[in-house]
């Protein structure tokens, strides 16, 4: 168990997120079972494993998008499933799909989320080096640029938990490096990262969970 780096003085629990014996069924198949782990402020967890091992399912389960077949997910000791709206508000989920509307410009795509969560659109665009593309419709962006636009949502407003499904897919080496400071700032502020990946990510000191 790594030490927590974040501001967790006083009586605050070291483990913010705790998975207790989670199991997941998808399409009448047991994807994983008896999965337990904890995550504290500033920590990062890498999910690795073969295709179909359940990395994406686990991330969706952690996000509350699918229910757990067995086990519980605790947030600061309370069942996360009891208030899924509140649970959704304290995390950022980056799925396989970029959730980018092709008809809107890059700036408009981010502005929608900025209205929901707060945060500076221009700063988020700059963090992923998208400023020069801000006024282009997302339809004309390349897949790597769309991925960066999806990642720019992370830079908008702070949320304690980031759930990232292969965040670096389609990104060039320079863009993957740019994620380093983004992740570091998030973890330094006490944020947590759970990322499913096949490629190395700039997450120093991350633990690995093999599914």
């Amino acid at each position: 168990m790594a030490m927590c780096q974040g501001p967790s003085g006083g009586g605050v629990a070291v483990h913010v997120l705790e998975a207790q014996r989670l199991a997941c069924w998808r399409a009448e198949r047991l994807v994983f079972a008896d999965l337990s782990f904890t995550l504290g402020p500033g920590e990062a967890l890498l999910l690795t494993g073969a295709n179909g091992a359940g990395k994406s399912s686990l991330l969706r389960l952690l996000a509350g998008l699918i229910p757990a077949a067995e086990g519980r997910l605790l947030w600061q000791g309370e069942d996360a499933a009891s208030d899924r709206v509140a649970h959704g508000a304290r995390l950022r989920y980056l799925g396989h799909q970029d959730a980018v509307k092709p008809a809107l410009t890059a700036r408009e795509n981010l502005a929608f989320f900025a209205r929901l969560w707060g945060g500076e659109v221009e700063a988020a665009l700059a963090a992923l080096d998208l400023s020069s593309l801000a006024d282009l419709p997302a339809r004309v962006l390349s897949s790597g640029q769309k991925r960066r636009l999806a990642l720019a949502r992370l830079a908008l407003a702070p949320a304690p938990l980031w759930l990232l499904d292969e965040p670096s897919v389609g990104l060039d080496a320079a863009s993957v490096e740019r994620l380093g400071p983004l992740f570091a700032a998030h973890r330094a502020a006490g944020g947590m990262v759970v990322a499913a990946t096949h490629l190395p990510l700039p997450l120093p000191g991350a633990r690995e969970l093999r599914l």
Partner: protein
Amino acid sequence: MRALLLRELRLALRHPAETLSAVLFFVLVAALFPFGVGPSPELLARLAPGALLAAALLAALLPLDRLFGAEAEDGSLDQLLLSGLHPATLAAGKALGHWLTTGVPLVLATPAAAALLNLPTEAWPAAMLALALASAILSLFGAAGAALTLGARRGGVLLPLLVLPLSIPAVIFGAAAIEAAASGLAPRPYLLLEAALLALAAPLAPLAAGAALRGE
């Protein structure tokens, strides 16, 4: 909620084809009736109230199966569900967006369709009001239907089967209002009954839609 509405309106402006096709469908169906009924203006005017409502509701159904389908396909639905908005709020926003981008244009096109159906001009205001209420009711039930059929194969066929029976009362009172206005009576009682249906659907349909979205 306001952010969601702004986004819906902006998307509709960028893709005007969906709104335009609904409006064209409405006017074209109204234009077909005179050909079918033949040279009998009185009979046409007699049919007009029901024909207007049926055509408008069918036209408003057209973009409904994309209401959540398009969001689910590109991953936006996950983001919306995790955005901190309650799923029912989300569904209400989508229903209102559907009404603004489909229902309101249909209401604006009502005089054209009413003229094609030989509806007396004194009944046009009542027709527009009745269609505004009926399309709002359809948007609400439609959002619930779209949420329920999301991910179902042949959802596009299932959706009208679910939604149209629920809109029968809206057709009855809407057509009665237009008919009353056409024959010189007050359409107000019928419009109020239709508004009562809307008042019933407004809280219930988004709750049902939200529950369906979350269970997905």
